[in-house]
């Protein structure tokens, strides 16, 4: 299909004085795993709720595969939602929960029970149909909520921080599974999260939200390697922002730039400098040994700090701490610099 799955045209949602979403343009492609990333209060959840129909834009239009849905109630939109708190109906069995959408459509009991159980297989929970939500663990409820939404074959599936309540291990496992399920069913997923790692792991594309606006839309690599604003640089990964006189000294331009910590190499003061490299000298102020890698905080000559990460390939914790308060030279490739403006 050439129509975009979701299209926002100048969409705003104001709550009185508060501009939760302010004149947002957005396009989500068909079949895409799309993430909305941002801190709480950045407008990402409001956008999701407007797609679902729980909220309506105060200005602008929302299109779903070309149809203007801005004013449709939730039950007339071919989208389904996986809620942050799962919102399973406590008085119904898992089977009835999953088959709820089909029941509303009037599908006969035997048929919808069969479908519900098929969907339970899809989310890897066969045989759980007769239980009640209270008998399930957080991760299992999560899967049931997913099944309840998927069974209706929505054109777009909305996920509102669905992994937020799970512990780290389970969350990582679910990230992989979600991605797999999305490939299996081929539905457009819109995933809201405040966790940059989660967004980077799963998404085809990411929109970074800040204060009701979208700062940048792009592939995970785009957003990470080439942040277009200081906010994106800071929110996705560690911000290594340098501007003004120091920037001038390093790059020859006072424009503010960002460089990712793992792109920087700690070098000896007499190391050879190649032409495609930027150089900066400074003093190592702090060394944090983290097993797999070590974080260094380097104070540059003339002001400003850069964080550097180096893998501990041959070094040990004793070696790395030795260079604390030593003078050092930092090197990184010119292509790894993003000019972020502001």
């Amino acid at each position, binding site marked *: 299909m050439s129509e975009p799955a979701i299209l926002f045209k100048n969409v705003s949602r104001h709550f009185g004085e508060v501009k939760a979403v302010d004149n947002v343009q957005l396009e989500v492609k068909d079949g895409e795993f799309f993430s909305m990333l941002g801190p709480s209060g950045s407008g990402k959840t409001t956008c999701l709720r407007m797609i*679902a*129909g*729980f909220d309506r834009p105060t200005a602008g239009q929302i299109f779903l595969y070309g149809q203007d849905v801005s004013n449709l*109630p*939730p*039950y007339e939109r071919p*989208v*389904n*939602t996986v*809620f*942050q*708190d*799962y*919102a*399973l*109906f*406590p*008085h119904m069995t898992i089977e009835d929960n999953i088959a*709820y*959408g089909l*029941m*509303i*459509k009037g599908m006969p009991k035997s048929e919808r029970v069969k479908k519900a159980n098929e969907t339970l297989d899809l989310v890897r929970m066969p045989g759980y149909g007769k239980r009640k939500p209270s008998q399930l663990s957080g991760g299992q409820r999560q899967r049931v909520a997913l099944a*309840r*939404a998927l069974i*209706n074959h929505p054109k777009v599936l909305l996920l509102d921080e669905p992994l937020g309540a799970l512990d780290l291990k389970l969350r990582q496992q679910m990230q992989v599974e979600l991605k797999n399920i999305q490939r299996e069913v081929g539905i457009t997923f819109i995933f809201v999260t405040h966790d940059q790692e989660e967004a980077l792991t799963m998404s085809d594309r990411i929109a970074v939200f800040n204060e009701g606006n979208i700062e940048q839309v792009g592939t995970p690599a785009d957003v990470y390697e080439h942040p277009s604003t200081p906010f994106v640089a800071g929110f996705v990964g560690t911000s290594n922002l340098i501007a003004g006189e120091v920037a001038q000294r390093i790059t020859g331009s006072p424009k503010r730039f960002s460089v990712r910590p793992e792109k920087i190499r700690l070098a000896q003061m007499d190391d050879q400098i190649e032409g495609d490299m930027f150089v900066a000298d400074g003093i190592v102020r702090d060394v944090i040994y983290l097993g797999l890698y070590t974080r260094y905080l380097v104070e540059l000559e003339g002001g400003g700090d850069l964080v550097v990460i180096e893998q501990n390939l041959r070094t040990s914790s004793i070696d790395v701490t030795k260079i604390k308060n030593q003078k050092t030279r930092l090197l990184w490739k010119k292509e790894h610099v993003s000019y972020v403006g502001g």
Partner: protein
Amino acid sequence: MRSKPSAESSNERASLPLTLSAIGALLFLHIPLWLIFLYSFTTDESAYTFPPPALTLKWIPQAIQNTAMQDTLFLTLRVAVLATVAALILGTLAAAAVYRFDFFGKEAISFMLILPLALPGIVTGIAMRSAISLLHIPFTFWTIVIGHATFCVVVVYNNVIARFRRSSNSMIEASMDLGANSFQTFWHVVLPNIGTALMAGAILAFSLSFDEVIVTTFTAGNQQTLPIWIFSQMLKPRNRPITNVTAMLVVLITALPIMFAQRIVAQTSDGEGGSK
């Protein structure tokens, strides 16, 4: 069956004087109720002699067949049922409005609803009496019902809103998201979830109405509800044995459903049962 003392209780023990005072307070609360039962069976017709000279069962059929008692009982039941129905509708609507919407003066709603129960009964009573007098409204069955419904609303409201607040916020949204319109959502999701709260609220409202004397005194005119009948019997005792038995029946009619309601509320672990 009632096994060993639970280990999670305090490791220190209550001192003897404390235990005795606690038991004393409990006895103080309960002995009078036992006496009601005892006196239903006394043979003494003209006084409250203790200990009863002898015991008999003959008053119970007599009381049940007493037409004056029956009339007041039916009036009281009719009032209580109608007041409960009105309270259920008004209380649920108010709870839904306060829970689902944001509006100016939201805080004032629950305050206003609790006022008739929080202010001394006599204030509500005389206020209604003065409205009746000011507007020359005749005393009828309906003046009693309206008075009762007014102070019953809050117990339904409290129970229902407590249940709403304990339910997942997004349940209603989830239902609509899955294709159900407002009516289907109410029927399939909201009603099953607040069902026991409605039941508990109804029982509480019913017994509140069934027992009420103070407001009723001002809104009933010459009609007698059961509590007013007992009150008048206390002022001018005419038929002590019948009054004794009636008192016992009233305890049974109100206390049993309340214990049942408490169970419902406890089972669904819903904190609030209304304050009175």
